[in-house]
Every structure is written in C-alpha cells, then in structure tokens.
C-alpha cells in the first residue's frame, strides 16, 4: 500500500486556561493522498483550525499538542527539531491562514510580498525572485499592470489571490487553506474557488480546505471530513457526505442550510448551542443536541465505523451491522 501524502494519527491538542483544560482536538486521524482535496467542515470550536496549526507545529503555549503523529511524505513531522519546521512551512506545506487577506503587509506591494516568500526559502537572486513572483501572480489571475499594487489598492478578491500566490510560491505539495473564501462577495467566492480548482489540477496540488461553509467545501473537495467538538464525526467522499450523510450532526447541518432549490421554508435548526472544547462531556460531543441520542451516547465516545465504501461515521447508531 502506497503511503499517503499526509497521514495524521490520533492527534490531540489542548489549551490551558484559568478554568481548566480545553480539548481543542481529540484523537483526530485522517489522511490525504497526493493531489487530493480534503474538505474539513465544522462550526466554531470544532477544532478544524487547530488541526491545521498542529500539523505545522504552530501551536504555542498555552496550547500544547499532547499526542499523535503526523507523517508527511513518509517523514514524521513531530520527530523533527522544532527549528527545522521552517523548512517545511511555506515550502513543502503552505498555509493560507484565516483572514490572510487582511494580514498582508500594507507597506509591501503584491509582487514584493510574493518575492519575499521565495527568497525566504531559496537562495536565488532578488531579480529572479521578482520574475517568478510576477509569473505566479499572473497565474492566479492578477494582471501584470497590477502586481506592483499595495494591499489597500486591491479588492478583497485580488488580495486573496495574492495570498494564494504566496502559498504557491515554493511549489508545495500540500496547501492548508483555512476559510479561503469566507468574507468575500458571492461572485468573487465562486471565482476564487474556480481558481483553486484550476490550480489544483494544473499543479497536482493536494489541499486541505477548511471552512464552515459545506457548500463551498463540497464544490472543490474530493473527500469531506466533518468535525464537531474537537472530534471527527464523519468522513467520506464529498458527494456521499453531502447527499447521503450518515451522522446526525452532518444531517442536521445540511438541513439547517437554506438552499436555492426546493421549498423555501424547508430549513431546520439544530437546537441548543454549539459544543466547544470547554465543555468536557463524556461520550459523544453531539449527544446533547442529537435527535437520535441514546443512553450509550452520553457514556461512551463512539468509535469511527464504516458506513459505506470509504465512508466512516463516529456514531452509536451504526454499531455492528445495522
């Protein structure tokens, strides 16, 4: 069996606060193949951003990775010396953090920002870096006459393209994109998603696409992983998860989203509040809000079970051949 590009096993990350320990990520395991796009969907407090930060070992105190392993291209990233992670970040695994378009250096032009990323990892001449930067920016759809523009002169969509160019600057094999289209206008969202899809095909990129918007995720992902309360609740091929979800949370999430087709009033909300890592519940994190909750759900954490070809859900409903 060929090893997957990224293999995460039993990852757990916590944050220490005055009131106790927040288990942001609990026992999360998944993998991404070469060239595959994995969408991670969840609401606030589900741990999706923490997963990405943990992969790149960007967790700082009061946060701490307490267990698990991450194998990237066969290598255990957690075994590396911390300082050498810099060689991985931005070069082999690139990240587009949340609200990155707001974090662009206001005194650097688009071309300079991209060139800086290249220079940080490769020993090339400044002019060469700038030339590569210009090409990159063109490939993400920024016309040549705008590459010298400063962030405040660019629209939201353009800025996001700059950020994407920065992520691709050193030809990574994996890109972690955290809410890359959130906050953009609807039409621009579609354009950026198109761009990402395009780039992924042209460069054979693997991506981890993190978002709370399952619609956006489903348009570009091969597989979807749904997280809730720090745990993985469902994982499977995108079309299957969206059209035939097995976990009550995924079902509830999809039912809670108004659609453009179908009857207008057909929207159900999930009662209760979203569980976050601060609520240390025994058993399944979703059970207080679950319409199908059983006794065992409050006692035991359900293990991930196979509910279809390549499709798993962590739910007691699927205990042994249902």
């Amino acid at each position, binding site marked *: 069996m060929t090893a997957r590009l990224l293999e995460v096993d039993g990852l757990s990350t*916590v*944050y*220490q*606060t*005055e*009131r*106790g*320990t*927040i*288990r942001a990520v609990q026992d999360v395991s998944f993998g991404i193949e070469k060239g595959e796009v994995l969408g991670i969907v969840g609401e*606030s*407090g589900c741990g999706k951003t923490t997963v990405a930060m943990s992969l790149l070992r960007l967790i700082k105190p*009061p946060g*701490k990775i*307490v*267990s698990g392993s991450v194998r990237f291209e066969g290598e255990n990233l957690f075994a590396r010396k911390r300082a050498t992670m810099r060689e991985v970040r931005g070069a082999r695994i690139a990240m587009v953090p949340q609200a990155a378009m707001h974090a662009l250096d206001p005194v650097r032009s688009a071309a300079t920002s991209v060139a800086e990323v290249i220079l940080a990892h490769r020993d090339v001449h400044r002019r060469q870096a700038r030339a590569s930067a210009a090409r990159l920016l063109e490939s993400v759809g920024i016309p040549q006459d705008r590459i010298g523009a400063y962030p405040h002169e660019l629209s939201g969509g353009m800025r996001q393209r700059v950020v994407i160019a920065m992520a691709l600057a050193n030809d990574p094999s994996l890109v972690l994109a955290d809410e890359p289209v959130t906050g953009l206008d609807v039409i621009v969202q579609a354009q950026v998603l198109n761009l990402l899809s395009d780039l992924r095909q042209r460069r054979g990129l693997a991506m981890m696409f993190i978002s709370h918007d399952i619609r956006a995720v489903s348009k570009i992902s091969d597989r979807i992983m749904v997280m809730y309360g720090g745990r993985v609740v469902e994982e499977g091929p995108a079309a299957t998860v969206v059209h035939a979800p097995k976990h009550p949370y995924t079902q509830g999430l999809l039912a809670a989203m108004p659609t453009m087709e179908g009857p207008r009033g057909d929207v159900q909300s999930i009662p209760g*509040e979203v569980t*976050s*890592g*601060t*609520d*240390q519940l025994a058993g399944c994190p979703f059970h207080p809000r679950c319409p199908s909750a059983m006794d065992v759900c409050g006692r035991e954490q359900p293990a991930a079970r196979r509910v279809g070809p390549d499709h798993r859900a962590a739910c007691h409903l699927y205990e042994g051949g249902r």
Partner: protein
Amino acid sequence: MVAATATTTSRRRRLPQWPRARSAGERLGRAGAVILVLFVLVAVFAPLLAPYDPKAQTGLPYQAPSADHLLGTNDIGQDILSELIYGTRVSLAIGFLAALLAIVVGTLVGVVSGYFGGLVDTLLMRFVDITLALPFLPLLIVLAVFLGRNIKTTVLVISVVIWARPARILRSQVLSARERGFVQAARAMGGRPRHLLRRHVLPAVSPLIIAQFVRAANIAILLEASLSFLGLGDVTAKSWGTTLYYASARGAFLTRAWLWWVVPTGLAISVVVVAFAFIGYALEERADPRLRARRLPTLAQFGGAPTVATTPVPEEVLDR
C-alpha cells in the same frame, strides 16, 4: 454555576488567598502597589513615625548619623530623617494633586475633541500640539518664576506641563471607542451625546484614564523634585526636592554628607517612581490585549461558551 469537580490531582485547596497573578507584569504591579501603599502610610502617619518636628532645631548642624538622629542633621540642625518622612507628605500630595488636575483637564479635552470632532477638535488639538512642542523643563522654570514659588503654583505649573499628552492619547482612544458597535447601536436607538458619553464612551476609556493618571503622578513627583531642587518650588515647605536643594546649596556633594543627606531622599524618590512604573506596567498590560500574550487566557477569550462544569484533565496527560 460551576459544579463541584472531583479531581484526580493531589492539589489541596488551601485557605482562601489572593487570586494567583497571571503574569510577570501583574506580579510587578502588585509589588508596586504594595510599595506605594507603604509610602502613603508613611505620609499619613508622619507625625507618629518621625522622631522630631522637622522644622525644629533638634541638634547641632551638619551632624553625621547618630543614635539621636539616624540620618544626621542638616545645615540648620533639623533632623533629616524627619524631613524625609514629612517630605513624603508634601511630595506625594503635590504629585497626586498635579496629576489629578492634569488628568481632569486632559480627559475633558481629549473626550470632547475625540467625540465631537470638527472645528472643536482641530482647535483643541492645535493647542495640545503647541503645549507638547514646548520643552517642558524650561517651560516649567519660566512659569514657576513668573507665578511665584508656593505649593499652589507648583501644582498648577506641573499640571500645565503634563496635561497635553494624556489629552492626545485619550482622544485617539475616544475616536476608536466611538466606532465600536455598541456605541453605534446606542446612536441608532436615539441616544443623545450625553448618554453615549456617560454610559458607553467614558467607561470604555476609563482603564486608560487610570493608567494615564498613574503615569502623570509619576512624572509629577519627579517634576516637583526637579523644581524644588532648582529652588523654584516653595523653599519653606519640607519636600524631598527642597531637602535636596539645601543639600546641594550647602555643599553636601563636596563632603561625605551626601551619603546621609542626599542618598536616602534620592532613594525615596527613585523607589516611588519605580513603584508607579510597575503599577503602570500592570495596568497597561491589562488594557492592551496585545501585551496579554503571556497571560493565561480567561474562558471569556475562547468565545464565551455558557459556563459548564469542567472536569480537569488527569495529570499524566499534561506532561510538564
């Protein structure tokens, strides 16, 4: 709302104590507060603590420290230790009063300027700019000479010099507070400026006002010492600065007398200033979220989920 938790840790609940300081800054702030309180107590209980009346001649002049006079005597034969203790009153009083006056004026100017904007803002800020542009020690000296040398004018002169900076800082804070969602919401509800200022804007900037007051008090005490040292304060009042003035004027720096005439007083000034600085540091850290990086975050900062019982993580999972 937090249910009693059964812990697997062996930590015992000790007697109720002060909440644990959350960072180095907070520890410093507490140390500073303790020191300041001590000085205030000395000032308040001066008559009980000082061995003699500092204005009375209780010994021969220029005496070195002895059993009778722990810090020796000055040029007139007054006890230096008593001068130091009573001086605490004058120096702290002038410092606090000047700071209070400066902050009151500075807050008024800053808030009016920041909230109302327009012509008022432009005019007031020009005034502030001019005040800030003038070098303050020469300004201080000129005003002191011009207005005469007594405690009232010293307080006035110091506040005239230090009101401008807080005004500018508070104005910026008011400008940003004005744009906050809850202020906009109150406007949308039909709130009058008076209501908005009183209920929303002022409370939002009050931490900064307090921090600025601490800073101002710090500077004021130093300025008072400077003024008096130059002989421009009230030379009949017993403040730390005047003690130093006479010490210098009577040649204490040329003999060994500086050891007991200058050093203790100088030390007192330094310690008070450092104490204020520590307090200010802790207050600024509290007010500025960016400096909070080292502090343990509160639950509220994680999105404020409704309070639910938390079971602590067993010790072995958290390897320290």
